């Protein structure tokens, strides 16, 4: 489903060339859930960005759903994301001027879906926010905002879901509930899940953990 070969990412800095990812290769199967873990600054988020086509590697290739992402231009990658990819972010990234419902409708509208409101309403019901559809992000708690973001990620029934520290901004009880919701929906939709996290519990829910350190894959182990 998702394959990377020899990914290297270098940026120039005042101290010279900085290598963030160093020859990373990995393979993630359909329906598999994988946690990218490691210390801060290890290159997890950069790897996630490249796997999702948000950033380009200096060297190496990425295939997503059988298509070579690294051979496409930015618009090509955007179109691929529109069809097959969903995102959940640490800071939710909801548009402040839109209501919960409108935020969830956004990807549907981008795809030209005519029943956007109906579908979005159903999805919000699935994450338990039926009563909050008309609220603006400001009027929602952190946990509720992340549930809106999850609804937005799942509303397009993506084949791959990328999540960057999805519980990082939440207290542990809320984080726990959000984690459960994320995995329940994932199991139900059989989505491939790639997750960057510091939370052991969240990583433990995944099928596999890939440990990154100093830009290299240190270990890839199946969760017992």
């Amino acid at each position, binding site marked *: 489903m998702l394959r990377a070969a020899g990914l290297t990412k270098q940026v120039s800095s005042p101290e010279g060339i900085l290598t963030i990812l160093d020859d990373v290769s990995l393979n993630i199967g359909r329906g598999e859930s994988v946690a990218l873990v490691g210390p801060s600054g290890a290159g997890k988020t950069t790897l996630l*960005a490249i796997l*999702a086509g948000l950033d380009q590697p200096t060297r190496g290739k990425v295939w997503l759903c059988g298509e070579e992402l690294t051979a496409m231009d930015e618009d090509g990658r955007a179109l691929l*994301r529109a069809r097959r990819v969903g995102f959940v972010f640490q800071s939710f990234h909801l548009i402040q*001027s839109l209501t919960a419902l409108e935020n969830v409708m956004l990807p549907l509208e*981008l795809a030209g879906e005519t029943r956007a409101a109906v579908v979005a309403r159903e999805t919000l019901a699935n994450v338990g926010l039926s009563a909050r559809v008309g609220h603006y992000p400001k009027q929602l708690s952190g946990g509720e905002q992340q549930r809106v973001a999850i609804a937005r990620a799942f509303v397009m029934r993506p084949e791959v879901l990328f999540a960057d520290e999805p519980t990082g901004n939440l207290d542990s009880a809320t984080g726990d509930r959000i984690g459960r919701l994320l995995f329940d929906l994932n199991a139900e939709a059989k989505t491939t899940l790639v997750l960057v996290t510091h939370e052991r519990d969240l990583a433990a829910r995944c099928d596999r953990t890939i440990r990154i350190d100093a830009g290299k894959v240190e270990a890839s182990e199946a969760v017992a």
Partner: protein
Amino acid sequence: MKVLGFALRAFRRDLRAGELSILLAAIIVAVTAMTAVGFFTDRVGGAMKDQASQVLAADLVLRSAGPISPGYLSEARGLGLEFAETLAFPTVVVSGEQTTLAAIDAVSDTYPLRGQLTVADTLFGNGRPATGIPARGEAWAEPGLLGRLGLEVGASVSVGERSLVITRVLQYKPDQNIGFINLAPGLMVNLADVPSFGVVKPGSRVTYNQMYAGSDAQIAEFRAQIKPRLRPDEALRGREDAGEQINAAIDRAQRFLTLASLVTVILAAVAAAMAARRYALRHLDNIALLKTLGATQAFVIAVTVTELGFVIALTSVIGVLLGYGAQYGLAVIAAEFVGFVLPPASGRPFLLGVLTAATVVVGFALPHLLSIGTTPPLRVLRKDLPPPRLSAALTYGVALAAIGALVLVIVRDPLLLGLIAGGVVGTAIVAFGLGWLLVRALSRFRGAAGIAWRYGLANIARRGGESVVQIVAFGLSLMVLLLLGVVRNDILKTWEQTLPANAPNQFMINIEPDQLQGLKAFFQAEVGQEPFSLPLIRGRLTGVNGKPVKDVKVANAQGAAFLQREANLTWTDTLPASNVVTAGEWWGSGYSGPLQLSLDAELATNLGVKVGDSLTFNVAGEDIRAPITSLRVIEWDSFQPNFYVVLSPGVAADLPQTYLASAYVPRDRVEMLSRLVRQFPGVTVLDLEVILSQVRSVIDKASMAVQYVFLFTLLAGIVVLLAAIQLTRDERRFESAILHTLGAARRKILQGVAVEFVTLGSLAGVLAAVGATLLGWGLATYAFKLDYTVSALLWPLGLVTGALIVGITGTLATRKAVNEPPVAVLRDR
């Protein structure tokens, strides 16, 4: 379709969230200012064009300063044309002790050949189409004449030796003077009565007209037939000539007012650019998110452009509606001097509105908004990625090109466009330089007072660039308002004070040579002093160095204009006191040799002639030719009668001529003027004070109209202020929250904000006062040659107005950001 729907939803949401408010306000102000002027000038233009078809009251008019051969009338009859005759001259009309200057229109039975007279039975009664013309012994008076003499219909007035009964109020005649100044109200009389007035003598200032009407073919044939035989002082005017002149006049007024409103458009555009920048910065994250969710760059750009299309549509509609409302203000101000009812406006200014909105959007908002299309999607993960860079050359280039294109559409003249561009850039450099100096000077006072002062002044210095923009935006509009409101009056008053107390205030023309001695004796007896008098000969320049003028190439347009009109000549052996000979030699007193000419030096330049050349003038059908023997520089504002062309005495004394005279008559002795016109019928008295007060009233109204247009500029200045505040809103919220957290009371923070805006406004006031003083001084010294002292009112007025408007608006607009609870603000970060 997808783009359209998405853009429409985005537009609705942005409207609801207030994201577009300032941008919309800026464009609406620009469109309103442009279309208010557009609708108004369109209505005036429409009124004048409606009249253009009947402006001659005929299809063809033959006009002359002397009697026209009746032979032409028989020829016209022979061709089957209709015809009429009129005679027009200014004279004094007397009613009891009251006198006033009137424009007499003596008309024949068939007048008007085209169009219709409108008359009423009482001063402000309902108008109705007239049948025929005034009967013999009767007159129809324009409202202004009745008003000045305090008369009603039914009263009698004297014109020369004849008494006439006013039987109608003349509300409209097709060939009335179209222009903004009509100094003498009209009195229409029967042509057959004119000889009995005893005022029209050879050499009197009279315009003779023969009018003809018929089919286009008949008119063309007649025109071709008589044209070769016309005397130099006879001129033919057709409908199309009249239309052309009117169009040119409308065009000039339209361009001037439109350019005045262009200042508003430029300021509003600056506000729009600021608002668009803030919109772009706030939407960076949203764009990155959209791209993460799969939107392509082309889609993002298409949505942005479409949304801006909605912005143009919405602002055009609202702006045009407001502009239509606002033009009523201009129409009310102008009603008095336009002097006729304005027709409804056409739809054309709507296009101007759309064009204005599109210019502001494309030139000033679009570059900022397009730049966010290139936001990388990675920004959703890496907030520290900088916003896309916008090339300065591109931003300013597009803005200048857009404004340039708009100006070109308005003025349709690349040279004028260049001059305007130079003027705008020059003004901007000077204004920004001054603004920058003011902001710099301010930092010296920072340590002077408490925390509120320090905080307020620090804000101005820190946002230096934006502060200067705000000071300039306000300063410029205030400057124009001060210039028109205060400096104009000052200059007028200063000028009036320079007039000697006993400067001539009464001018008399059409004095027959045999009346001159009697007139002198009359003044000697009444006011103890003889009037100053000079002979007046009317002639037309027909040749230069023996060549007919049609073959002569003059130096410039003023020279060409001189060839088109009847000139006033005089003769004297004494060089007038206000003249200095700069070339050649004055003939000296007692000279009676061959005829010589002395020319105004400027006229000589305009005509391209010099001492030694000879000129030929046609005076009452007779050609006189003489060499130019001297050039003079004339001080025109000396209040003495002055002449471009002076002839040497001798031969000139035998030419057909009248006299003009000037005298000072104390205000309490003006009643003697009615005795004067009775005793010397035909002499026309012009009261300078009456004329001046009329001119002043016209200037007042005209500058009020321009001030009205600049009120929109002030409004645009306020929008610039609001846009600047909006741009710094997030920063201000955060800073206020920090200050609150550190224990500063809300009052203290608000005081700081008030200090900031009151100071900004005061600086704008200083800029305005400096500008108005300099411009006023420059105009007074160089254009009007007056010693100008700044009005004591100018500086305080500028300072207080600026401080109040900017202080109040700025503080109110910032209050909300300051009042937010700190915890909410800090959590947002």
